[in-house]
């Protein structure tokens, strides 16, 4: 999956990829203060070809708010809401919303769902439907944070660590290896990194074609930009 992070008061963006194995579960957000966790499970293509870099995507998300007693599992097939002992399963084929004082879920059929946890956070999960007979690709999900201002400073995870404003200094913009993709040097979190100008897609408005977001690409699984290495974010279960 690819990640896009706004920097410098949303004036620019950093992007990076995380390569993982299908079936691996990555921690996306963890806030120990509010007991809020988002984990995502990776899926691969339908066929695995030798000697070709394998792309992975998020196929399932698990969202837990222990304080509210809410767990939500979102897969490309359905959305399951666990609230206390109650379990409600929504198919992606229906437009629906479920509201409680503390949280709400709103599903736009075959498109996206918006999850609001009280005043704490609002997220959007976008469903990417692929032609079901496509030989290679399969349905996958995208995760977007609309609002995280009430999550604590202790929030971490592949995305969560960037909920605090990231200050990055970009300088020494120079021609890169690919024509039209300049390289630059970025200083962030005390590291000096080589970054390459490119585009990544934001699929919130147009889930089919996406909107191009210009960003500075951090190579090698976001090395130096993310805390630690990708395997630090691997967890054992969705919840």
């Amino acid at each position: 999956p690819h990640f896009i992070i706004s920097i410098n008061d949303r004036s620019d963006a950093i992007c990076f990829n995380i390569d993982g194995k299908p079936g691996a579960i990555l921690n996306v957000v963890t806030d120990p203060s509010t007991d809020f966790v988002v984990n995502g499970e990776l899926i691969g293509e339908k066929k695995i070809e030798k000697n070709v870099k394998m792309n992975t995507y998020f196929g399932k998300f698990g969202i837990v708010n222990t304080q509210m007693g809410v767990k939500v599992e979102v897969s490309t097939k359905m959305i399951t809401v666990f609230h206390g002992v109650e379990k409600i399963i929504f198919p992606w084929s229906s437009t629906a919303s479920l509201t409680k004082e503390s949280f709400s879920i709103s599903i736009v059929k075959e498109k996206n769902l918006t999850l609001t946890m009280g005043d704490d956070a609002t997220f959007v999960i976008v469903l990417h439907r692929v032609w079901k007979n496509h030989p290679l690709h399969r349905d996958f999900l995208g995760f977007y944070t609309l609002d995280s201002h009430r999550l604590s400073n202790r929030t971490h995870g592949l995305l969560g660590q960037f909920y605090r404003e990231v200050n990055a200094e970009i300088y020494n913009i120079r021609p890169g290896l690919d024509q039209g993709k300049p390289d630059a040097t970025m200083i962030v979190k005390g590291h000096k990194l080589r970054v390459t100008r490119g585009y990544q897609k934001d699929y919130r408005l147009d889930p089919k074609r996406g909107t191009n977001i210009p960003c500075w690409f951090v190579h090698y699984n976001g090395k130096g930009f993310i805390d630690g290495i990708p395997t630090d974010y691997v967890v054992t279960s969705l919840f």
Partner: protein
Amino acid sequence: GRTLKKRSIEEHGKKMDLELHAMKIESKVTSRFAHTVVISQVLNRANVSKEAFFEIELPKTAFITNFSMTLDGVTYVGVVKEKEVAQKQYQQAVSRGQTAGLVKASGRKMEKFKVSVNIGTKKKVIFELTYEELLKRHLGAYEMQIRVKPQQLVNHFQIDVHIFEPQGIAFLNVDANFLTNNLTSIVKNTTSGTKAHVSFKPTLQQQRKCPDCHETILDGDFIIKYDVNRDLSAGSVQIVNGYFVHHFAPANLARIPKNVIFVIDHSGSMSGTKMHQTNEALVKILGDMDTKDHFGIIIFDDTIDTWKGTIFQATLENVIEAKKFVKSISARGGTNINDPMVSAVRLLDKAYQDKQLPERSVSMIILLTDGHPNSGESDPTRIQQNVKNAANGKYNVYCLGFGYDVNYNFLEKMALENNGVARRIYEDSDAPLQLQGFYDEVANPLLLDIEFQYPENAISESTQANFKHLFAGSEIVVAGKIVDNSLDYLRADVVAKTANENLTLQAEVKVSEAENITQQQQYIFGDFTERLWAYLTIQQLLEKRISAETDEKKNLTDRILELSLKYSFVTTLTSMVVTKPEENKNNTFVADKPSEDEKVTRPSFSGYSMGVSSRFQRPVYSYVDSD
């Protein structure tokens, strides 16, 4: 060589004077709305005139829409008229010493339609009856019941049921209790996706009880049970010819806890079997309660007794204690219905005040009685008022009338005024199962305060769109007219409450596409949505009429009559008049729809049948007035 001859019903020299040559029952079901046509062809092979009967049983929930008989190539068609008009016509006929055909309640689920006609020698008559009904989802399935009883072998016997359900058919089972194991293969059942076809065409040989006898095995119920695919969505909306129908029964919902007060009559009239059966059923019902539910038990004769004075959670220990108590209930004394019902309401009120019950839960009072109030407040109207005022819309009241002597009207009105329903419990060996069956229907509430919202200016004359509860295994149906001719999309929002949250489900249907899908299906009869809407509207208005005050009652009556006449439905306010030929004079008969209010009698003779009697031994008919 010997010529092989097809065996017929005339073989062995037992030539039948009146031969039921063919009987065809054809049903087309689209979106749960069933349109059934029964055609019966009778030949008179005798050298004298004979009287042929056409007698069938149809579901009580069905409305007869058409009847005709064709004699000597002339077809006599029934006309639906206002009941009073039909009755006058009928009385004139009676005063002339002529006979009348009619419909009678028959057993628990069916009513009997019977008519006879005199047919000349070597002549034939063709009877054709059409009825329509909206199949109701009950404990997770729609059930279509066809009662079969031709009483003799039929050259061409055929049942054909075509089902089209746009949501897709989840399962379909056919059960015919008259078929022995080796004959079940005669029933052909083809189900694929949205369509199903059930066909049953037994040959003469297959109809015989034994190889050379004339008795038929065709005697019993042919039952088709099915359900459609469903998920947690706003349901299915179909649109045909400017009318829409919306079916709603989402899957994957958690049950909402319930609080039940059982109000049990143990007056003297309950003594014996009824009391034993009640004890047995209550033990089973208590055993089936969810541990999150709460319950209370009030027993009454001319006095009342609340078990341990309060409501209990259905924990294992409490249920064991309660079972011991219900086993010990014995019959004695008179019948005071008012006080225990008001006490049940107070018990629930107090439990809510004391925060003993979950905030979001369904509270209900289930009254079981076998008689009339004759102790304490005995005026039924005042009891109804007292219960209505006390419950104040907060609690559902379900009334179960046990046996033949209940005042069903009184119970029905009391239930309907308090968001509940009334049911008869038939005095029979399976009474405990009937009680449990009713309890199962309301045992698992899934949604509260369900509201269907459609664009205000785009639709009109919608059927009921607000419902207090949705129970597991049932279904809500809303139908209406689309008045905006330029409407591209019909959007339906369903707003409801689950155990913990508020739920909104939305469906959006492209009008032109929806029309196309249904029109492409060969199974439907074109105006089914409109007829379904009319059927549902009439059913709901008839129910509303039960508890309406004078002015409103008149308006409701007028509207029901208008719709019944327009759509040719034999309801409890209309009758079907058929003039039948009898030698040189015309004979009128009137078909009425009986109401549940009628005194229940045990069924003695039932089925699709054809009988014979001498023309001089006319059957004696009595006029059944349902109102």
